[in-house]
């Protein structure tokens, strides 16, 4: 199975440019790439360090995708494209992947990038990355020559190609990092020598990260920018003011919808919700199925019917968030329409509650709801809305606030909750970001974003596990559709909305990051019109 070059954005752009050149002289001939310049990115995230091989999360992902190359990259579709690997091929049984690396690629210190580095990096990631399922089926890796990597799998692992892209498996210089120190706490993680289009020259936590163009980058002529500054702001308001004053040119991962609307109205900026298909962020209400009342599926379904997703999306989130109805986002290749949606229906909610012995005439039902602190619009506001909405069907909800994220995480991880608002990311493939929430084997007290719902359905486990090793995409889609159908039926989670992440940028910014990984992929194609 060789890769096929899909209709990528680059070919489209080339086509568009050709068309423009043919059609009229007044068309945008200025689309010729201008190199140089500094792009200032407004950021609210605070990375602990910059080594994405041992640290998940968007805070590290954005700078790490600039500092480190990955083997593959993705455009706007879930179709892999060459990056550090110029070609790749699966064996017929889909258990061996052979990748050919580009020749002449070098790290920021000038040393060549070889198959040894790739194998070492994947090994480190497999051992240390929090997403343990990502590379888990790798049995062994071989380097027949400095340009070839062979990955042997225990079983087919269709999530692998995606795992070799974006922020997930950065290629590290073995000669720098293999120094006998624990890689998770290696001080070199703060200013790492990398392999990507930009090298990091300054990392001031809480202030800024300065990334300078790597002149020896293996893609000819890239990156177009001279410098990227990731400037950290304390809150979305100050980031937005920086955009308005021109201090920053791009604000990715902005989810404060009133502020997005405000910038949209300014007229000098472009607002897009593209670039987030890869993380697939969902804002949801999770149930502790060990709670006596919530162990009854009818109670969970009743709560789902009593919550009006459209109110959340349109009224609370200014019409900018899409409703979420199942474990994956709408942009995922595994999205299916064929699930129970739980459209707002108070009569059904009341009937289900009555059947379960609650509601009017039944036992009174009191529940507590938690939410992730410091996220007003997505978490606290929705939690308070749930309180008001469930009051209408006679469920009394008390909102419990947590002073900080660790307190919330500790409460949820130790299963000390009735219901909680939560935000969980798909990370591109269900094997990486979805299974963890539903597998019986992943009920692991003490671990946040595991199956803290204590939900267990053998049939769902079977479907998810089978889909995880199914190389055929169509068959995989069927299996996931069946799994998601069953999960929504069992309602351990009530899916509410997709987090309305948007990227806002000044009109001068060209080739904005709209791939599935957005700013968590390389920004080597971005340029500034001067």
């Amino acid at each position: 199975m060789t890769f096929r070059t899909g209709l990528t954005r680059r070919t489209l752009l080339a086509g568009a440019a050709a068309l423009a050149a043919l059609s009229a002289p007044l068309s945008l001939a200025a689309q010729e790439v201008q190199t140089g310049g500094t792009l200032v990115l407004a950021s609210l995230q605070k990375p602990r360090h910059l080594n994405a091989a041992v640290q998940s999360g968007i805070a590290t992902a954005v700078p790490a995708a600039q500092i480190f190359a990955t083997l593959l990259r993705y455009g706007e579709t879930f179709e892999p494209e060459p990056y550090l690997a110029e070609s790749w091929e699966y064996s017929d049984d889909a258990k061996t992947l052979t990748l050919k690396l580009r020749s002449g690629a070098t790290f920021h210190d000038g040393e060549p990038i070889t198959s040894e580095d790739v194998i070492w990096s994947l090994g480190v990631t497999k051992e240390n990355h929090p997403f343990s399922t990502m590379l888990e089926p790798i049995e062994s890796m071989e380097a027949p020559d400095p340009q070839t990597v062979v990955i042997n799998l225990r079983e087919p692992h269709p999530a692998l190609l995606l795992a070799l892209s974006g922020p997930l498996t950065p290629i590290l210089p073995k000669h720098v990092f293999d120094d006998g120190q624990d890689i998770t706490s290696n001080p070199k993680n703060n200013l790492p020598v990398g392999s990507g289009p930009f090298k990091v020259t300054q990392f001031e936590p809480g202030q800024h990260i300065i990334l300078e163009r790597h002149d020896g980058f293996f893609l000819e002529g890239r990156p177009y920018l001279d410098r990227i500054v990731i400037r950290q702001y304390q809150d979305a308001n100050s980031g937005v003011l920086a955009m308005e004053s021109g201090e920053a040119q791009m604000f990715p991962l902005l989810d404060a919808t009133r502020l997005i609307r405000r910038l949209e109205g300014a007229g000098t900026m472009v607002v897009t919700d593209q670039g987030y298909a890869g993380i697939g962020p969902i804002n949801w209400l999770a149930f502790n199925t060990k709670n006596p009342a919530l162990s009854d599926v009818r109670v969970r379904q009743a709560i789902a019917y009593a919550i009006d997703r459209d109110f959340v999306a349109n009224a609370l989130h200014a019409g900018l968030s899409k409703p979420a109805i199942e474990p994956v986002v709408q942009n995922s290749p595994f999205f299916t329409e064929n699930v129970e949606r739980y459209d707002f229906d108070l009569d059904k909610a009341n009937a289900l509650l009555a059947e379960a012995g609650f509601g009017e005439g039944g036992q009174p039902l009191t529940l507590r709801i938690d939410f992730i602190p410091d996220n007003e619009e997505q978490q606290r506001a929705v939690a308070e809305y749930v309180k008001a909405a469930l009051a209408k069907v006679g469920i009394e909800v008390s909102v419990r606030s947590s002073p900080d994220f660790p307190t919330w995480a500790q409460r949820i991880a130790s299963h000390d909750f009735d219901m909680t608002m939560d935000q969980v990311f798909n990370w591109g493939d269900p094997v990486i970001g979805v299974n963890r929430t539903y597998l019986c084997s992943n009920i692991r007290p003490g671990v946040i974003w595991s199956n803290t719902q204590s939900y267990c359905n053998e049939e769902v486990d079977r479907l998810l596990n089978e889909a995880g090793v199914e190389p055929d995409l169509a068959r995989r889609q069927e299996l996931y559709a069946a799994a998601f159908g069953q999960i929504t039926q069992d309602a351990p989670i009530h899916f509410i909305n997709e987090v309305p992440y948007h990227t806002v940028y000044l009109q001068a910014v060209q080739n904005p990051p709209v791939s599935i990984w957005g700013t968590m992929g390389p920004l080597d194609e971005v340029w500034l019109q001067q």
Partner: protein
Amino acid sequence: MVAITTVSTPTPTPAPAARGPMAEAWGIFRRSPAAMLGLVILILVTLMTVAGPFLYPVDAFEIVWAPLTPPGQEANIPLGTDNLGRDTLAGLIAGGRATLAVGFAAAAITMVIGVVIGSYAGFYGGGVDNLLMRFTEFFQVLPPLLFAMVVVTLFQPTLVNVALAIGVVSWPQTARLTRSEFRRIRTLEYVSAMRAIGASNSHVIWRVILPNALPPLIVSATLTIGMAILFEAGLSFLGLSDPNVMSWGLMIGSGRQYLLDAWWVVTLPGLMIFLTVLGVSLVGDGLNDAFNPRMRER
């Protein structure tokens, strides 16, 4: 002021005053326009929170209309809605109750702790004073907001805990004030006289000295109410308040994200806090003047 008449028996009886000390104080208070304005504000705010729910029976937590509706746009929602679509006026009415309750409760806690510690320290002096004052200083040097945050974080952010936290960080000043009053008064002749006729220590502390030390303490308590209201707002602004009880601070805390495009969500509860604290301060100042003997001579 029964105590004053009681203790004045051993000393030569002074010429009978035309009015009681309270009436005299009220006379001075009444003549100050600023103090009367403060009193009127406080009465209005209290009326609003007490009578409001009957005149405007809207549940402060119910979602009544589109979120962030500006004031005046809908006839039946005079002050608009917040980020969830809850009625702002209903929030102000319900929130006032909680905010005032926290203010008074915190002031009461402050007074109880401060007066007990301050009076024992001031009365006994010596080792007891030394010990109690070192204890007080320990609390005095703690940064109050930070300490209150820790208290609220460790326990749940319920209104009771918020009031307790504020009380726990504010009592040292009251203790100092009480101590200095006690040290002054315990040397006065009528106290010696009470001792001479065999009054017990606790009788002297609670029945003799305390009533005479009260005027500055009342002023201090009044100002503590204002401070506690501001403190509650500050904690709420940082997200450390009870999300299940509407308070002005909570309204400000959950509305601050919308400050750039929905001014009323934060401004209206802010205005209420401003007015209430202003009222409390004016009343406090008025009381200070009214209890001041120098003012009395005029």
